[in-house]
């Protein structure tokens, strides 16, 4: 009987920094931040290389869509990112980057894999030890969660405001977008007992004695009743609950094993709830949730990647292929900046999605054992 490896936050090496980090190591920037000019179709990064250490980017959104900016390591491991940059705004991003090859990406409309470009960092950085790689996985994922909780709160607030203002069209448009941030980090949300069903419970899965509240209650009001004049209390409660879970999730450190299991659970969510159209049964916006689950699963795996590359390079190659296939198959169902409704997909298309999720979930289910070695 092996002991499960549980890492506390004590051993963490903070190796990347989010935009809001406080303890900034010595800057490696010479001549100020690297300018990034983002439009709806382009992502011009002024410099393609930097010295290792803290690299600062200044992203100006000159397009008409909200954009995001990412620095990715291999396997789309997020080293740093800044989300939710409205048109006309410039945001700074500081990324601590060891020597290596990276990709920068702008995501106009906050969708897809983004407009990518290679970015090289040279210099010396000691490679992480095996244990440090696992510890870093926890830190890396925690940064990911933080990057999602900020827009989750912002978009939920917008959604709730629209509901309370009786603006049904706006609320309908915001519903799947607010849920996207939620669905990406659902494994964390599920840790907090009752909060998950309060926020995301469906009418049929509410436990006895619990009221039907949260996103799906508002979904029902918006799509089925077409009347949100009495939805104010539910909307207020949703915001309270989301605020609480954001506070808790931001502090939560998931162990590498929890990450591995979370990656698998997100795909189980896709297979059992999204492909079947059960999740968003009134709005049929299941594919937004599907995409978010897939992205969240990928983020968990990416956090574990350095450790996995040491221990099971074959598995990493399999995962890369399977993720790519799943993303490609899902991308067929894009509709503008969003997704087709579940009801627009044929049985054949849903089966094809099932196949790629099965193909991905099997290798993902093997990660936990590799991490536990």
């Amino acid at each position, binding site marked *: 009987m092996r002991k499960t490896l549980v890492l506390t936050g004590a051993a963490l090496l903070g190796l990347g920094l989010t935009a809001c980090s406080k303890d900034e190591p010595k800057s490696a920037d010479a001549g100020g931040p690297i300018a990034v000019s983002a439009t709806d179709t382009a992502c011009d990064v002024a410099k393609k290389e930097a010295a290792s250490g803290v690299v600062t980017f200044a992203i100006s959104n000159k397009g008409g869509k909200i954009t995001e900016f990412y620095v990715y390591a291999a396997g789309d491991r997020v080293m740093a990112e800044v989300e939710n940059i409205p048109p006309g705004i410039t945001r700074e991003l500081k990324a601590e980057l060891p020597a290596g090859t990276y990709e920068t990406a702008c995501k106009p409309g906050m969708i897809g894999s983004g407009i990518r470009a290679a970015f090289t960092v040279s210099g010396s950085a000691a490679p992480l030890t095996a244990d440090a790689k696992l510890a870093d996985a926890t830190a890396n994922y925690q940064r990911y969660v933080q990057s999602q909780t900020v827009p989750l709160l912002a978009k939920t607030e917008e959604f709730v405001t629209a509901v309370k203002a009786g603006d049904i069209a706006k609320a309908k448009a915001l519903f799947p977008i607010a849920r996207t941030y939620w669905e990406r980090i659902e494994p964390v949300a599920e840790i907090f007992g009752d909060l998950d069903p309060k926020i995301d419970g469906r009418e049929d899965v509410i436990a006895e004695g619990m009221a039907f509240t949260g996103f799906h209650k508002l979904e029902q009001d918006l799509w089925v009743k077409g009347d949100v004049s009495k939805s104010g209390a539910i909307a207020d409660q949703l915001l309270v609950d989301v605020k609480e879970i954001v506070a808790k999730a931001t502090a939560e450190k998931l162990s590498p094993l929890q990450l591995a299991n979370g990656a698998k659970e997100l795909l189980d969510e896709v297979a059992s709830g999204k492909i079947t159209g059960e999740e968003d049964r009134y709005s049929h916006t299941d594919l937004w949730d599907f995409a978010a689950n897939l992205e969240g699963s990928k983020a968990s795996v990416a956090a574990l990647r350095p450790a996995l590359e040491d221990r099971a390079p074959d598995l990493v190659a399999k995962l890369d292929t399977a993720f790519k296939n799943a993303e490609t198959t899902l991308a067929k169902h894009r509709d503008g900046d969003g997704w087709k409704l579940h009801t627009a997909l044929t049985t054949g298309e849903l*089966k094809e999605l099932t196949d790629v999720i099965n193909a991905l979930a*099997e290798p993902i289910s093997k990660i936990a054992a590799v991490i536990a070695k």
Partner: protein
Amino acid sequence: MVTRRTAITLAGVGAAGLAGAGAMALIDGGTGDGTANALSGAADAVAFFGPHQAGIVTPAQDRLHFAAFDVIAKDRAELIELLREWTAAAARLTAGHDAGHFGAVGGIPEAPPDDTGEALGLPASGLTLTIGFGPTLFRDADGRDRFGIADKRPAALADLPAFRGDALRPEISGGDICIQACANDPQVAVHAIRNLARIGFGRVTMRYSQLGFGRTSSTSRAQATPRNLMGFKDGTANLKAEDTELLKEHLWADAPDGAAWMTGGSYLVTRRIRMLIETWDRTSLGEQEAIIGRDKGEGAPLGKAKEFDEPDFTAVGKDGEKVMPMEAHVRLAHPDFNGNARLLRRGYNFVDGSDSLGRLDAGLFFMAYQRDPRKQFVPVQRSLAKADILNEYIRHVSSAVWAIPPGVSGPEDFWGRTLFT
């Protein structure tokens, strides 16, 4: 290696369950020299390796789980890799072991078990696993030769023609690869398909599958003839494992047939035949017997006394009519009227719940092995489709034809090797 289940030796031999894994009495599954031994215990294992695949002349087991897959793997190497993995798993499963190396409970707690576990404690139960390749494996619906085997498609693996009265549903017809799992315990058959499907995730996708019970044919003289859901004995005139010469002639593919890689293989036609049993059950006994051409109790051809009496197609009764009606099923399907076409039928009954009209969704999952469907199944089905009164009570809703490759010679060999080398 973890053993799934403690071996159970032949009942009646007096051997107690041996301590230690893997000691098993093997039934010769008819794979050795085309003959089958007398029936052994229902719990025993059937030999997996041999010149022919097991599950063809193996005395028909009581249960079926048949699965048709479409290949989604993109290249030949990936497909071959899957066939190797499947073969290894099939050899283990048929011997009564777990699907994977660690088994249902032998792995570490952090890993999902490499066997699903529902067969823990169950004996091998006569499990056979038989693989077949459909026409679309050689060239898909868009005409693409995905795996570089289009030129190997045997002439005998011709697409079946449309038959009169066909009510085929495309989504439960055809397929790239089939696996027939037969066992004396339904849980063992299902377990095998479930684990093979899991191994195949990402490389194959399940197109359709069918559970069956109560074998409807005997493939050995040691077996009594079973009854189908119409209540009649079915398969009296079947090819039997003991008919070595007949099997050579009617069952096994041979090099002169044109596809050398198929030597020792066979061809399988599968048809899901829905029976409108509520209507059938309201039909008078006399009419039922006239439609089939046998009496319901004994199964003797009309005008004869015993089941295995040869039917007399010329005898005329007192009324001046043929004793065996011109449209009787037995007459229409008989080799005498179909260029001596013989089949080795190996079908199963099915009841898949009921339909929205409250009728049992029941019938016969017809399976017939043969040397060349163009000369065997097709002419027989043509004459049945044209005149059989039985057509009023049945609907063919699914159809497929498969090339059944030769057997696996040993642990180094794999299913379909001759096709890919």
